[in-house]
């Protein structure tokens, strides 16, 4: 027994290191596995409070730009008034899309923390469970797709940005309706990549890429970006299409968190027909 004790004392540095490092790696793999940040309750409150305060300070300097974009948006929304009815309350508004018979609820939230420099970037919003935000809700802004909610606490939410190595967004090219997947290769915060488009499809510079609506998260038709250059990989039969993201992730200020009210029904239906489909 004394030998064990002596051993521990002698190598305590390495042993402690191994304990701490393995603990950290376990934490990390758990976070990465479930593609969500394991948000420590108290920690998140502190982080949220700090970011909310610092955001308030920074906001003052951005007021001009924000005013401009809000004014533009107001103009667009006024035009839409006759088609959809809007009930504005302090936190959200409804849009009834009669064409697809789906209902979307939009919650406005402010971005209080954002990164673009890492391989996996996350955004923190100043609204949470109390405001109706749940995991797996879509996050967009007037320019297009921003990300997906991956973690929620009472007053704050974590959003997985499009600029994230785990991003997989079902998308389509507007002109041809061809379906593909949007991923981010980590090289440039202004560009993402569209994959899985077969090589025989006609592509043009300037084609727009939008959400397909096939995931139950994003409404269809939300802009992701515009095609710039593309190539077919030699030997592959699919395109790898880099495109310019429509959203400027360096200037995120206000976003909308979208709740698809049909989501539960769609998911349930998918689950019940899983068994039937295999027969």
């Amino acid at each position, binding site marked *: 027994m004394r030998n064990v004790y002596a051993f521990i004392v002698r190598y305590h540095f390495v042993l402690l*290191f191994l304990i701490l*490092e393995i603990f950290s*790696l376990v934490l990390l793999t758990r976070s990465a596995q479930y593609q969500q940040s394991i948000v420590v309750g108290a920690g998140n409150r502190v982080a949220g409070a700090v970011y909310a305060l610092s955001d308030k300070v920074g906001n003052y300097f951005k007021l001009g730009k924000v005013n401009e974009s809000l004014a533009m948006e107001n103009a667009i929304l006024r035009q839409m008034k006759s088609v959809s009815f809007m009930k504005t309350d302090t936190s959200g508004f409804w849009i009834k899309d009669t064409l697809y018979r789906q209902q979307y609820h939009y919650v406005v939230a402010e971005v209080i923390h954002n990164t673009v420099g890492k391989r996996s970037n996350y955004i923190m919003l100043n609204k949470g469970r109390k405001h109706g935000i749940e995991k797996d809700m879509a996050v967009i802004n007037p320019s297009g797709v921003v990300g997906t909610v991956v973690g929620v606490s009472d007053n704050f939410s974590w959003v997985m940005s499009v600029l994230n190595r785990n991003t997989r967004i079902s998308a389509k090219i507007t002109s041809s309706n061809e379906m593909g997947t949007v991923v981010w290769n980590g090289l440039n915060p202004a560009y993402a990549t569209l994959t899985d488009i077969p090589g025989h499809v006609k592509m043009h510079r300037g084609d727009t890429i939008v959400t397909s609506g096939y995931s139950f998260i994003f409404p269809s038709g939300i802009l992701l970006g515009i095609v710039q250059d593309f190539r077919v990989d030699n030997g592959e039969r699919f395109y790898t299409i880099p495109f310019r993201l429509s959203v400027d992730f360096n200037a995120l200020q206000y976003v909308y968190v979208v709740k698809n009210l049909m989501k539960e029904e769609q998911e349930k239906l998918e689950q019940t027909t899983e068994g039937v489909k295999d027969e």
Partner: protein
Amino acid sequence: MSRLVWINALRFVLLMMLQILIMNRFNLYGYLNPDIYLMFILLLPFETAGWLLLLLAFFTGLTMDIFNGILGLHTAATVFAGFARPFVIKLVGERPDYDTTTQPTLHQMGVKWFATYAAILLFIHQFVLNFLDVFSFAEFWNTLFRIVLSTAITLAFVILFQYLFSSRKA
């Protein structure tokens, strides 16, 4: 002794705030990630016990993780850097026995020593951080490029802060 404790406690708080409020917004080109909070581990006194060094590294990394979203990422990288610190000090050169300097700062150890020491530890730190972030070796060169750039800019800031804020007295 207690004066050192206060200095380091203050250093911790200031560095955390600096990193979270300002450095994390440094989004130029998407590659440059100045993680200057490692400076706290860099500047801990030479006599800091090994276990204390590791624990402080752990909590420093954990604090960063809480503000960044993925628990474990910065923690693992900072703990590793803390583990490497004694070896790096040995490598770059221990202070001579007669020397009574207590902190590995630029003013006390000289620019060359400090720059080498900081560069190696920052590189190790960024290396672990970035490869854990990517979680594979698939984008090796891309990640390496990111590591080198981040190390360079962090080193620049660290040295700058040393000149700006460290006093010249022993």
